[in-house]
């Protein structure tokens, strides 16, 4: 049984179909990369998975159990197992880095504050920001904010981590530090679903690559086959466009 099993998932905004029957699976420890042109529904897929955008059809199973996205208790349970990091970080602007990390564990997991702070400091150290615990987001660079955001997601001890173009809003010289953080993370065996346009990184880190276009999965497979011998012309033209650019 797959850890994450997405079947015929559909979603849309106000009558427009954005996700049009997406199916894919991730085993425990998989690093699944979603690639595809902008507007193909990658962000929407992650938003549906974490319960920010309601699905209009299909099912999501975690360890075989279907998630009921209309039920707030089920959503709460889901968000204990799955966490997301956004392109724009979305750190709480009114809190220090450490408070960003401890708020949810204390309020939703019932962790004692001292323990949450100790764990928060550990996590900040893991992403190389041990000295920034007391800094507010506005005092941090984009790359630092994104690393805090990753640490915040990890503070929930998720089994599945969703990463939506986490390096796209960064200055080029800051991209490396965030990719390094994700590499380290990959070695811990956490399951990840990530959207990225960093093709070299995707190829290196992924156990599986999923090519999306117009709300559908065009093809999926191990990175070597998607990058070297894609079956679909749509994948080939996307790769060529990316490489040329």
């Amino acid at each position: 049984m797959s850890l994450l099993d997405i079947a015929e998932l559909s979603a849309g905004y106000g009558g427009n179909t954005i996700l049009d029957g997406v199916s894919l699976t991730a085993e425990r420890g998989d690093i699944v990369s979603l690639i595809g042109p902008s507007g193909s529904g990658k962000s929407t897929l992650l938003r549906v998975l974490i319960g920010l955008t309601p699905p209009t059809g299909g099912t999501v199973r975690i360890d075989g159990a279907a998630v009921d996205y209309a039920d707030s208790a089920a959503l709460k349970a889901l968000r204990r197992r799955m966490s997301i990091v956004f392109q724009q970080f979305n750190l709480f602007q009114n809190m220090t880095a450490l408070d960003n990390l401890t708020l949810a564990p204390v309020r939703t997991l019932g962790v004692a504050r001292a323990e949450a702070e100790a764990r928060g400091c550990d996590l900040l150290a893991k992403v190389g920001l041990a000295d920034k615990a007391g800094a507010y987001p506005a005092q941090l660079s984009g790359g630092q904010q994104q690393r805090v955001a990753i640490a915040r997601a990890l503070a929930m001890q998720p089994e599945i981590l969703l990463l939506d173009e986490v390096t796209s809003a960064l200055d080029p010289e800051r991209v490396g530090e965030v990719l390094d953080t994700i590499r380290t993370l990959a070695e811990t065996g956490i399951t990840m679903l990530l959207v990225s346009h960093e093709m070299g990184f995707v190829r290196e880190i992924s156990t599986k690559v999923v090519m999306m276009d117009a709300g559908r999965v065009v093809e999926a497979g191990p990175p070597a086959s998607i990058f070297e011998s894609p079956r679909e012309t749509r994948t080939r033209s996307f790769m060529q466009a990316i490489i040329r650019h």
Partner: protein
Amino acid sequence: MNGAAEFFTTDTAAFLAGALGRTLWMTLLGCTLGFLLGGVLALVRRTRQPLLAPARLLAGLYVETFRRLPFLVILILVLFSVQAVAPGLSLLGIATIAVTLAATAYLAEIIRAGLDAVPRPQVEGAEVLGLSALDRLRFVVLPQAWGVILPPAAAFMVMFVKDTALASHLGVVELAFAGKILVNKGFSPTLGFGAVLVLYALVSWPLGRAAAHLEKKLVAPRHR
């Protein structure tokens, strides 16, 4: 005509103090209740729960109506409705209800604008961490919204100190009415209205200061 010697007596002072007390009572109590009720209306209007649709509609209707009614009209409406159901209520009580009704509508809009000013991604960041709606409000939205809510809310209250003068039409002896009574008693308008003017100024100033202090205490560090 009574002169200055008769004016500066404990009697006049007590009379003016009573009037000042009524002005303050109406403003402070009315605006405080209005802030709480306005907050509730603002929150109701922000919900998305389909079951709450009728409540959203009513809240919107209330806010849009009462913001458009002149305060004097609200006073008269309250006067007649209260006299029909609870004839024993004092004029000051009636005026305070009217202030509350008007303040609720205005402050609901001010609070709603403040809550809306907090970017949606901030709320989503809290939502995906499993924080309850109340926790999102308490820890993420309100701390970032205070800076937007407090200045216009304080300005509204300071301005409303003056509007409570309309309660004199009901017969509430608040500051403005007290000035008129003193002049009718034979004191010169310079003395009677001069004293009222000084008292209005003395009230608005600390109110403004208190609001500024509150703002400093509540507004999140980044926004300071």
